[in-house]
């Protein structure tokens, strides 16, 4: 067996065939990297036959910033700042995974206050991320109004973040050892108001888009991903649950205070775009429920248990942690030499990189319009793919 290295130009070359059945020519068309539907700089080469998609070849690297390489020359606290920029819609969950692995490796015990606040912030971020996804899905399918409704409601939550965390998008708040700072005195009150505001909004979203016959036609039985393929393709998060696999890391390996709250896991049946849509809308509701259960019971305590001036040195070895972000399972691997405060190797198992390749599998044989619905329902954030 030998190793042959191919290139993109070889992949997109159409072989010269003398006669094909209906004398139509297959052609490659380029979607992106600047494109209203691909949610970022994702370039997809589509092999089309008329309007039917034969193959989807994603071409990556337009936002590759070498975060893992930079991670080898910064210490763990500095690296948290870089993780914000990956899946920026789940920035605090990205921070949390770094904090988690460092605390696990250094065997640091946390107090309840830190865990409660982290969980509440993560769930608020999940709601906010799904609202944006919902609006963008509507826009991709042609209904422009949901986009603005989603953003308007997202502002309520982003304002809470701005007051407590200081930032609306790249939070850098959850640090190894606790939180960057204590929560704002208004936090509890504002979160309660926000949840009262958001709860009927989700029903409004259902009314505006879910029951719409055109949306149903465009998402039911489109882009079906069977469960065994999903597992083999490494798909995690809402797409995996939509395919019928009830795997939610918050229930299976609870972190934070997820073992103390009651919530349901939304699991789909068929694995089509509609199930992926429905799973996320239902997750929004469950997140609201989680926040409501936690917001009144935040215990007192310190919010930073690792002295900022001290270096964090992880013992020699290989450590891995993961958690469930809005898009799937984000994992982090740190290989440390036990001596310096910088890792030897830091690798992020990003959910979007693993979910992306399902696009090829679910779009073959469907039309370009379905491709847009598929990409949108997988909810990809491209900086997380490229890192």
């Amino acid at each position: 067996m030998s190793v042959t290295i191919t290139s993109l130009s070889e992949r997109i070359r159409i072989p010269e065939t003398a006669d094909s059945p209906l004398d139509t020519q297959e052609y490659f068309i380029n979607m992106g990297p600047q494109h209203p539907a691909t949610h970022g700089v994702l370039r997809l080469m589509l092999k089309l036959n008329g309007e039917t998609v034969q193959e989807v070849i994603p071409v990556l690297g337009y936002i590759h910033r070498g975060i893992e390489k930079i991670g080898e020359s910064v210490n763990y606290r500095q690296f948290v700042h870089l993780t914000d920029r990956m899946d920026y819609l789940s920035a605090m969950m990205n921070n949390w995974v770094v904090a988690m692995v460092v605390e696990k490796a250094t065997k640091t015990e946390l107090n309840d206050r830190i865990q409660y606040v982290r969980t509440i912030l993560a769930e608020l971020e999940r709601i906010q991320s799904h609202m944006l996804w919902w609006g963008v899905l509507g826009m991709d399918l042609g209904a422009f109004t949901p986009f603005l409704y989603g953003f308007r409601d997202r502002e309520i939550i982003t304002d809470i973040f701005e007051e407590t965390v200081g930032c609306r998008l790249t939070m850098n708040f959850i640090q190894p050892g606790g939180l960057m700072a204590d929560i704002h005195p208004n936090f509890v009150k504002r979160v309660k108001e926000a949840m009262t505001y958001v709860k009927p909004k989700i029903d409004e979203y259902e009314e505006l888009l879910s029951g719409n016959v055109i949306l149903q036609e465009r998402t039911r039985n489109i882009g079906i991903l069977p469960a065994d393929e999903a597992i083999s393709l490494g798909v995690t998060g809402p797409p995996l649950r939509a395919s019928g696999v009830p795997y939610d890391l918050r229930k299976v390996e609870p972190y934070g205070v997820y073992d103390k709250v009651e919530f349901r896991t939304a699991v789909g049946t068929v694995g089509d775009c509609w199930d992926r849509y429905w799973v996320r809308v239902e997750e929004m509701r469950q997140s609201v429920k989680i926040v409501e259960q936690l917001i009144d019971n935040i215990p007192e305590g310190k919010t930073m248990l690792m002295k900022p001036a001290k270096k964090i040195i992880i013992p020699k070895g290989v450590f891995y942690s993961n958690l469930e972000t809005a898009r799937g399972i984000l994992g982090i691997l740190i290989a440390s030499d036990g001596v310096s405060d910088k890792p030897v190797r830091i690798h992020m198992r990003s959910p979007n990189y693993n979910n992306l390749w399902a696009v090829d599998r679910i779009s073959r044989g469907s039309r370009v319009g379905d491709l847009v619905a598929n990409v949108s329902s997988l909810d990809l954030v491209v900086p997380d793919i490229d890192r």
Partner: protein
Amino acid sequence: MRLLVQKTFEAVTFSDRANALLSDNFWLAAGFILLALITTVAFISILGLSLVYVERKIAAHFQCRLGPMRVGWHGILQTIADAIKLLLKEDIVPERADRILFFMAPVLAILATVLALMVIPLSPSLQVVDLNIGIVFIAAVSGIGVLGILLGGWSSNNKWSLLGAMRAGAQFVSYEISVTLSLLVAVLFAGSLQLSEIVQSQAAGWWIWRGHAAGLVAFIIFCIASTAELNRTPFDLPEAESELTGGFHTEYSGLRFSFFFLSEFINMFIVAALAATLFLGGWMPFHIGGLDSFNAVMDLIPPGLWFAGKTAFIIFLIMWVRWTFPRLRVDQLMRLEWKFLLPLSFANLILAACVILTEAYFFA
């Protein structure tokens, strides 16, 4: 004691006036024609400007925001600023585009619009030409518009534009059938293809409610099928922004793009005007056959205002639908037409014929 008497309206068109003067005074006749052309161009410009502004404001209010607010009072001058910007833009022609067709495509699009506008009666004294085959003429010239779209997509030398143009061609040809069949319902009721005759025939009541269910169903089918003709959501695949970035007009910029853009909005006006003329009575006020004093009161409102109101209502309806619904996929669109709207239109035509034969009008 009868103080108010129901009026009868005398319709005179620009071409009639020109004809009457032709034997006496050639230059005055020519002046009338020139006046008609200038009025049409001015009308199109002002209408285009205001429709774009209205669309932006309506879209904004549906989306819980305000829309243009800065340029002029509440953004009234926004479209003028946009028009100046478009005119000053660089004229880009793609390198390997087919130049002749590339230049011709937007011209064809606007040509179809202007021609169709010529025969629409805006009020008893505001119509350019009153052809005795008015409906057929309109159906014919709107075909020139789709030719413009197809040529635009082909000549751009861009696979995405071609996809958009092909979709547009298929969509237009399919939905034209339903449009024509629903127009025929009104023609059947009125008994004439001439648009002014159709308006006059609604003196006893508008066909939408006087023609029983046939009129109402024909109106609804007309509105749906015309939205498809206009390439507006939920049928805006040819220019689906999230998929094709711009469809057939991706490669156009500046003045040429403004032709496409303008023709789309004026087509919307023409569709609304047609719906108003054929189903809602055109410039005819709201009459109920038999109630003379009520009719006389309705006649106090000038007919031009009636027409403007009806057209504005239908334009609002079309815009409302655009900002609410997602987009249909191309095969769903075709299925809607061929399997659903077309049989329904045929059945409706037969129903209309039955209503006419039995003279079973509502409020005869």
